[in-house]
């Protein structure tokens, strides 16, 4: 594990690290802090057939499914919120082109915690009584076990260890020491649970800019494999403290995706931005 090796690379180099057959996870939720620059690069690269795991994905997932990059999904919810069901996901699942394992928030968190903590599994509260239990027992992702201390039945969630995490952060030094501000969602767990971590950041800063931060780093160089400078790299989703979601662009996406034209939207709006991110 090289320490002080600089990991600053271009967008193209970064997404070339994503190997065939990988399962990926992304930062943020629905329309907030999606790693859109990295996602766009993955689409542009022509990646296919990846797995995807997340709690409450939105735009990034729908795009990845529309582009055929992702062919199996595990998530607690996939939604475009007020713009309705995630249209590309819905269509692909209904047509049987994409597998979907529905999860539930607490269990996704438990699985990511187990992955991040280097444990084979974690118990999770709640859940019992939901038919999701049957699905996951069949997939061998959950098991109903007895509390070894006599407290009754509890669901054990197998560790979730994504092959790749695509994370958009506020700032990062060239070694992978990064800081996310505002809402974290489970991104700090995703960074720790994943085998390969690619961080894109609004700003690349000197390590000195991180000194005497009052709060723990979101990632260290030990966690991160590649760093990309991508200002605006969450567009059109929101970036806490920097920019809001671009609702016009998102509404247009929802409309076009419903019409099966998600890739047209990509060509019109996201592809042109790739060069600005050094593609």
């Amino acid at each position: 594990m090289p320490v002080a090796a600089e990991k600053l690379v271009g967008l193209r180099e970064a997404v070339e690290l994503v190997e065939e057959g990988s399962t990926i996870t992304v930062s943020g939720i629905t329309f907030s802090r999606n790693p859109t620059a990295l996602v766009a690069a993955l689409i542009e690269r022509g990646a296919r057939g990846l797995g995807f795991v997340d709690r409450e994905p939105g735009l990034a997932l729908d795009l990845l499914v529309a582009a055929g990059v992702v062919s199996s999904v595990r998530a607690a919810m996939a939604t475009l919120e007020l713009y309705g069901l995630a249209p590309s996901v819905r269509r692909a699942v209904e047509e049987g082109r994409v597998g979907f394992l529905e999860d539930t928030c607490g269990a996704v968190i438990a699985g990511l915690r187990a992955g991040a903590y280097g444990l084979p599994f974690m118990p999770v509260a709640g859940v019992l009584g939901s038919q999701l239990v049957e699905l996951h027992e069949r997939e061998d992702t959950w098991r109903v076990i007895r509390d070894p201390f006599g407290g009754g039945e509890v669901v054990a969630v197998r560790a979730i260890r994504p092959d790749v995490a695509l994370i958009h952060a506020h700032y990062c030094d060239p070694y992978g020491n990064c800081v996310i501000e505002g809402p974290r969602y489970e991104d700090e767990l995703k960074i720790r649970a994943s085998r390969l971590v690619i961080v894109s950041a609004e700003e690349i800063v000197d390590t000195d800019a991180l000194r005497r931060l009052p709060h723990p780093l979101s990632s260290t160089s030990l966690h991160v494999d590649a760093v990309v400078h991508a200002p605006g790299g969450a567009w059109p989703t929101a970036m806490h403290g920097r920019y809001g979601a671009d609702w016009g662009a998102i509404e247009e996406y929802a409309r076009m995706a419903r019409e099966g034209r998600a890739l047209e939207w990509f060509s019109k709006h996201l592809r042109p931005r790739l060069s600005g991110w050094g593609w």
Partner: protein
Amino acid sequence: MPGSPRPTDVMVSCMASLIRDGESVYHGLTSQLPLLAMAYAWRRLGRRFTWLSVSESYMPPPETVRVLPSSGGPYAEPYGAGVVTTMDVFDLAAQGRIDVMFFGAAQVDAQGNTNLTVIGSYERPRVKLPGGAATAYLFPLVRRIILWARHDRRTLVERVDFITGPGRVRVERGLETLLCTNKALIEFTREGPILRALHPGISVEEARAGAGFDLLVEGEPRVLEAPDAIGMAIIEEHDPHGLRYLQRYG
């Protein structure tokens, strides 16, 4: 001049009325109506509670809350007194310390089970729904769940196609489960679903006709209070563009 209350606005005030002083209240994604209900409860009903959100913004000044296409972004509740993560809230829930959570549902059945997973079978979906998010996790854990859904026989069904949220577990444990529809307020109990209140102008018969399960009636159901002019002004302040009507509850 604020507009007249529509059924969506009555749903907002109905949900708001179910929040009590001192409670801890969380809302999730696609929860524009719960967000409005929380603001309404605070500002119009004077309820004081701990405001928690999937946006991870804690105790935002309610006046600053805005309805946006996402109820989870950083700009719907932008001035929180700090970041409190969803993980943190869900851990409190596991300890039995979260009092109120809101959930939508594509189907709700007589036992209060909800479905957000699939219409048809899981393996061959007729409609692939968005997924239950925290539904399965929180159903057995949160003291009071406030559901909202459309009042028709496609939604209020005898049996859900898939049990995402185990309402039966809640009823068995004596946890409160309430449903605000665009016609009524229903509570799920050991005895069955009870019609607790009606929107103004809706009859018991109409409410029953719109449900695919038997609705019990104890005496005369209350009539829900529609937002008055002050209440509507507050709702419109939070949602000047009427995004709340996009979900077509009327």
